[in-house]
Every structure is written in structure tokens, then in C-alpha cells.
């Protein structure tokens, strides 16, 4: 890899000045970010700031009009989602997209099909014991929390090298959010690379190493959670909090 040349701390994922349009509206403007191996990065910002669009651009669901996306030094811009997933990038979409007619186990099997280092089911069930109890249930009968667990489990079973979590806690009861945060913390502690988009700032900051603040499709802040907490003005400006 020419890029990796003398670089000791190479980024696993590099998003370089991408511009993405959603329908007829320009959502991302020259947006750049980097994620290092083993890092958990939180993307924060108001609704419409472009967080989901960023994740969808990385996954190849939306094609950026310009700019570069490199994963592990290789350019992935313009590839179809299946090819990007094949390299180890895995989106857990906001709407979860569980296959309702398939059982929990079948959902996991679909996910594992093309993964070279797929986890055994037992390892998944250790992370999410609840899914083991429900493994024969159809996806559409799961509660919101269980669906979210399954959605994350589908990324884990693929042993994804980077997991893109889009609003994992949205619409869930506080107790379930706490469980999921616990899971996310453990994954972070194991060194799994993740990007998390979340409105629930406290939850996201509890396991993120680094934060990007987005506003109107631009990066307006980059720093650690501590930097952010130390700066309530920033919180207010781009999260709309406090007023």
C-alpha cells in the first residue's frame, strides 16, 4: 500500500471530502473523518445534520457525488454494498431491517453466509442471551429491543472489522438502552472498531473515544468526549441542547 508507507498509525477508515446528495437535497458538504483501528467514534448532531447519510455513504448504499472513501487503504467509493460488506464494513441500519418472516437463527445465518470468519451461534448467544431464548421466533414477533439486539448480532456474527451503528437506542425503553450500552462498552473494550450515530448523547459518549460533531453536512467539531463536556456552548450549538 503506497499510502501506508511511513504511516505508523494508519486509519482503518478514511472519509475524504465527500459530497452526498439525498434525492434532490445536498446533505454532505466536503465531509471528512478518520477512524483508527480499535476506536469508537461517535457522530453527533441535530436531525438532518447528515449523520445517517454519512453511514449510508460509507456502506455504499448512497454513492457520494465526489470525494474518496478508503477502508484499510483500499478505495471503496462506488462499490456496491455487498462488496463493501465483504471487506468487513457492516451497517446496522436505523430501521433495523430485520427479516420478519425469518427466524432469529435464520436472520443470523443469512448474515453469516458470506463471512469468512463467522462467529459460532453460541458466541452470539453469550453476548445476547435473550436471542437464544427466541432463536426459533420469527423476526416480526420480536420486541423493539430484541430486534435491535438481532440487528447488532448480525453485524457481530460477520466478525465485521468496523460496525456502523445508526441510532441503536432509538425508541427503546431505558432499561434496554442500558443493557445495549453495556454490550457496546464491552465490544469497545475488546477493541472492536465502531462508528455510532446517536441522539442519546450521554449513552453514546459513555463508550466513545472520539467525537465528531456534524451540522448541516459539515464537521463542526472534532475531539474527545471530555473536550465536548468541557464546552457546553458546543453542546448547545450543534445538539440544540440547553438553549
Amino acid at each position, binding site marked *: 500500500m503506497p499510502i501506508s508507507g511511513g504511516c505508523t498509525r494508519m486509519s482503518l477508515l478514511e472519509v475524504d471530502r465527500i459530497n452526498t446528495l439525498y434525492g434532490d437535497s445536498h446533505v454532505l458538504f466536503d465531509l471528512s473523518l478518520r477512524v483508527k483501528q480499535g476506536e469508537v467514534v461517535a457522530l453527533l448532531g441535530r436531525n438532518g445534520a447528515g449523520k445517517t447519510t454519512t453511514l449510508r455513504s460509507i*456502506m455504499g*448504499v448512497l454513492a457520494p457525488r465526489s470525494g474518496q472513501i478508503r477502508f484499510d487503504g483500499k478505495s471503496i467509493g462506488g462499490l*456496491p*454494498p*455487498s462488496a463493501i*460488506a*465483504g471487506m468487513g464494513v*457492516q*451497517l446496522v*441500519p436505523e430501521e433495523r*431491517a430485520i*427479516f*420478519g*418472516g*425469518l427466524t432469529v437463527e*435464520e*436472520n443470523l*445465518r*443469512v*448474515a453469516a*453466509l*458470506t*463471512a469468512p470468519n463467522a462467529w459460532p451461534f453460541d458466541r452470539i448467544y453469550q453476548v445476547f442471551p435473550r436471542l437464544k431464548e427466541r432463536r426459533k421466533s420469527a423476526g416480526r414477533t420480536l420486541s423493539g429491543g430484541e430486534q435491535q439486539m438481532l440487528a447488532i448480532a*448480525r453485524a457481530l456474527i*460477520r466478525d465485521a472489522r468496523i460496525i456502523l451503528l445508526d441510532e441503536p437506542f432509538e425508541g427503546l425503553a431505558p432499561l434496554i438502552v442500558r443493557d445495549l450500552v453495556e454490550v457496546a462498552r464491552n465490544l469497545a473494550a475488546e477493541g472492536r472498531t465502531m462508528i455510532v450515530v446517536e441522539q442519546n448523547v450521554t449513552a453514546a459518549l459513555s463508550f466513545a473515544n472520539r467525537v465528531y460533531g456534524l451540522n448541516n453536512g459539515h464537521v463542526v467539531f472534532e475531539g474527545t468526549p471530555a473536550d465536548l463536556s468541557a464546552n457546553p456552548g458546543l453542546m448547545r450549538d450543534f445538539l440544540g441542547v440547553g438553549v
Partner: protein
Amino acid sequence: MPSWPALVSQAFNGLALGALLALVSSGLTIILGTLGVLNFAHGALFAVGAYVAFVILQYTSSFVLALLGCCGVMLLLGILLERVIIRLFYDRPDEDQILVTYGIGIVLVECLRAAFGGNAQRVPVPSWGRGATQLGFLIYPTYRLQLIAIIAMLLLGLYLVLYRTSVGLVVRAGIENPAMVGILGINVRRAFLLVFAVGVVAVGLAGMLYAPVVAVTPDMGANFMAQSFVVIVLGGLGSFPGAVVGGLIAGEIISLTSAFNSSYSEVMLYALMALLLVLRPQGLFGSEGRV
């Protein structure tokens, strides 16, 4: 009021017709469910299957060979159609997909007409299927019983493929959400090719198996296609169990009605569809899903 033996005999006819419709419709419904394409060439492909049987059985008397040959020809035809034409249409509106498959249907039927003429051809009943079988108080043509059995096995095979294999898993997931299947690392377009080919094989085999019972003409598939539309509306679009159950219901309705008054047999089927549209528009097994 018809006699009991006549009724039972018609019920068997209904089973045979229903099984056939189930096979035709399951091909239609998995293509629709996965690819989102309503295949208007389905009737023509039914006729192609029948003509393949006609040709092969002219050179050999082996029905099994004809069955295998039919599988092979239909598979190739399905792959060819998907690669050359259908794949251009995944991102185009429904109506364009309908129009192009209708055009494919015209071309296939006219090719058959050019090659074999418009006259009806006869396909012999296989040697082991001749004569009639005594079923209690009823004497029933042997081949029709075998037809039911063969189709039941084919449907079982399709069921096993769909519900017991990885490929089937991808297809069922793809029927629900093709985009998510892609996000999970599976090349959806390759799965589409397979599904289209399997659907074509299913309808081709149906045409082949039915060939000995009816006159084989280039247009023979049109009415089956119309009926299989009714079947998948009954069963719910994209639902394999819906296609099977819907097919059997449709077959029995047509046959049993004709035991009372044959002129109403087909009409009843469409009347039932009208009724269902009012009462349960998503079909027996359907969810609102893609439609």
C-alpha cells in the same frame, strides 16, 4: 345435483389442476417476490416447456429424459433472459417490466409458431401412465394421479430448496428486503438470476407435465397465466405457501363448479377473486409488503 362418484372424480380433477396451478404460480410468485418483476412471459414459458417435451419425446420414449431435458432447456432459457433483458429492468418502473416481459412472451410464442406451426400437437402419455386406476368406486386416469404425485414432489423439492438451503434462505430474505441482503454482503443480483431461472424451470416443467393431457399449441399458456395471476392474488403476492394453497383452491373451484354447471367454472374463479379483493385485499397469506 351430480352423483357422488362424479363429484369425487371432479375433486380429483381439481387436485390435478390445482397442483398444476400451484407449480405455475409458485414460479410466478417467487420471481415477483424477489425480483419485483411480474413476469408476463410466464404463459409463453409454459408453452415452451410443453414443446420441449413434444420434441424430446419424438426422439426418445423416456419420460425421465424428457423431464431432465426440459429442466436443462428451461434453465438455460431463464439464465439467458435474465442476463440479456430482465436485468436491464430492475431499476425501471413496474409497467416497463410488465411490458418487456409481455414482449418476450410474444416473441417466444411466435418462435414456437414459426418452428412448429399453429396446429395442435399431441404429446403421448408415458408408457407407465396409460390406462386407468381403480380407486374404490371410482375409475380414474392413471397419468393424472401420477401428475399429482410428480407435482407434489416438485413442490416439496421447491419447498426444501426455499426452506432448507442457504440459497432458499437468501431468496426468502430477498423477498422481504433485497437492499438489506446486499448490506449483509450477499450479491443480490446473482441471487436474482438464480430465482428467475428457478421460476422459469418451474413453469416449464408444469407445461411439460401437462402436455400429455391437453392439446399443445403456442398459445396454450395464456389462460394458465391469467389463472395463476388469480392464484397469487388469492395467496398473497410473493408468498410461496400462498401460491400452493391458492393454486389448490383455484383448481378445486374450477373443477367442482363444473360438476354443477360447466359454463360457470372459470367465471366462479374470477368472482371469488373479486370477493377477496373486497374482503381481504392482501390475499390469504400476504402482507402488504411490496405492493
